[in-house]
């Protein structure tokens, strides 16, 4: 029987939650890297025992950890993220030019085919790649230098490159998203990039339909349809059917279309999950009710999923990297909250239960389905 391993990054360490295919009883291991912020932990699809973790602290900066045994032991690897070429400037909050400064790694995306190749999305926004298991990092600088970089501005959480999506049908195609610059695509393995923000409409920027400047919170793809992407923007849930060439809104009947996470069912490419959050000034669920919304029609028609989730007095947030799905026959859905709960559903969202309740604030959740 398959097992499931949930990798949880929190404000004060990483936790690894494991269960069998029933997903009823869970073992909790951790905290790993106790006391450090763990923005993201992710396993290699090509070798599930190869994990990468982003470990950082306000005192001691960035560390990258690597495991070759599924998280039992870890070794620090290289943490030198040096921007390539002229550093350049982006816009600061007040509109003045501000030099690019490395702060942390938000997201680690292992290659779909090579355990030693991994991409890192960093703040200030840039993408790096390692081809030697994290022993060295090289910036794919065509992203920062493609032309619009000087116009990018940080979102409230910093100017972070937080989403990296690899196309399983085309190893040269990469999608990324930056708060608050927008979504970008490379069709040549990261050498050159183009903004893919046509159709986005953001009232919070001077030119609502500008080519860059949109606060994209998360992008999700179903591997069987890599040209279809779903996006949770600051406000608005969006969809593209042409790899980002144009987007259209699918917020439909959501009670609010602000939020951070979005994900796709492992076996149903038209089944999409979001967690609506009241607003950008109220980073908690509407009416104190924690509800996942599911669309089985690729958007627009959404149903609330509430069984097992708190339906009163709940004021947590669910951050952008904190939802994932497993690939068991009955698709499991998982998300973590800033209140330290990790909720799991073993039946595609119909019923939920907490795996753990009292972790530090959850920053990220990833799932590995192990045979």
């Amino acid at each position, binding site marked *: 029987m398959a097992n499931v391993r949930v990798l949880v990054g929190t*404000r004060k360490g990483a936790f690894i939650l494991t269960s069998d295919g029933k997903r009823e009883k869970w073992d909790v291991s951790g905290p790993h890297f*106790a*006391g*450090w912020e763990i923005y993201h932990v992710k396993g290699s699809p090509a070798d599930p025992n190869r994990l990468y973790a982003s470990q950082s*602290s*306000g*005192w*001691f*900066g*960035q*560390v990258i950890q690597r495991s070759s045994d599924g998280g039992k032991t870890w070794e*620090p690897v290289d*943490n*030198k993220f*040096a921007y390539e070429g002229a550093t350049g400037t982006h816009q600061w909050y007040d509109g003045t030019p501000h030099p690019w400064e*490395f702060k942390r790694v938000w997201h680690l995306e292992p290659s779909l085919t090579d355990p030693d190749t991994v991409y890192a999305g960093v703040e200030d926004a840039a993408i790096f790649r390692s081809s030697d298991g994290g022993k060295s990092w090289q910036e794919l600088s065509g992203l920062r230098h493609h032309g619009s970089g000087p116009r990018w501005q940080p979102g409230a959480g910093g100017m972070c490159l937080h989403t990296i999506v690899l196309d399983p049908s085309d190893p040269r195609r990469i999608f990324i998203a930056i708060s608050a610059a927008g979504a970008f695509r490379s069709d040549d393995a990261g050498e050159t990039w183009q903004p893919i923000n046509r159709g986005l409409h953001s009232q919070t920027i001077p030119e609502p339909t500008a080519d860059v400047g949109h606060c994209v919170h998360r992008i999700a793809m179903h591997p069987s349809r890599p040209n279809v992407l779903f996006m949770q923007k600051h406000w608005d849930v969006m969809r593209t059917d042409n790899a980002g060439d144009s987007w259209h809104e699918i917020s439909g009947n959501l009670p609010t279309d602000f939020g951070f996470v979005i994900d796709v069912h492992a076996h149903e490419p038209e089944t999409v999950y979001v967690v609506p959050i009241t607003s950008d000034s109220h980073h908690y669920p509407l009416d104190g009710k924690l509800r996942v919304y599911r669309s089985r029609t690729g958007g627009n028609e959404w149903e609330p999923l509430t069984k097992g989730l708190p339906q009163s007095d709940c004021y947590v947030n669910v951050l952008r990297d904190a939802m994932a799905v497993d690939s068991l026959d009955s698709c499991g859905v998982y998300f973590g909250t800033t209140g330290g709960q990790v909720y799991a559903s073993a039946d595609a969202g119909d019923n939920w239960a907490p795996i753990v309740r009292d972790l530090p604030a959850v920053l990220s959740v990833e799932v590995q389905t192990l045979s």
Partner: protein
Amino acid sequence: MVIRVVLPAHLRTLARISGEVTLDIEGPAMQRSVLDALEARYPMLRGTLRDQVNQQRRPFVRFFACEEDLSHESPDTPLPEAVVSGAEPFLIVGAIAGGCD
């Protein structure tokens, strides 16, 4: 000469060491040579005390010795004689202002 270095707990864990570190320093003992020797022996500490690109001390890292704050000294200023002689350790401290929660 042998310099005694005390690291903060998080970095002792990262480097998998306990207690003080003793470093053999060739040439003048100063912040730069101590940090160079420390990072050479424990490569996982690179970037945790000073920026790897510009070599600037991280803002919330402090260097103390002999009840003095040496953080704002030039990295090339000779360390106090008591540190050079091994009578006193070179203290690397996470500033009390560091971290956000």
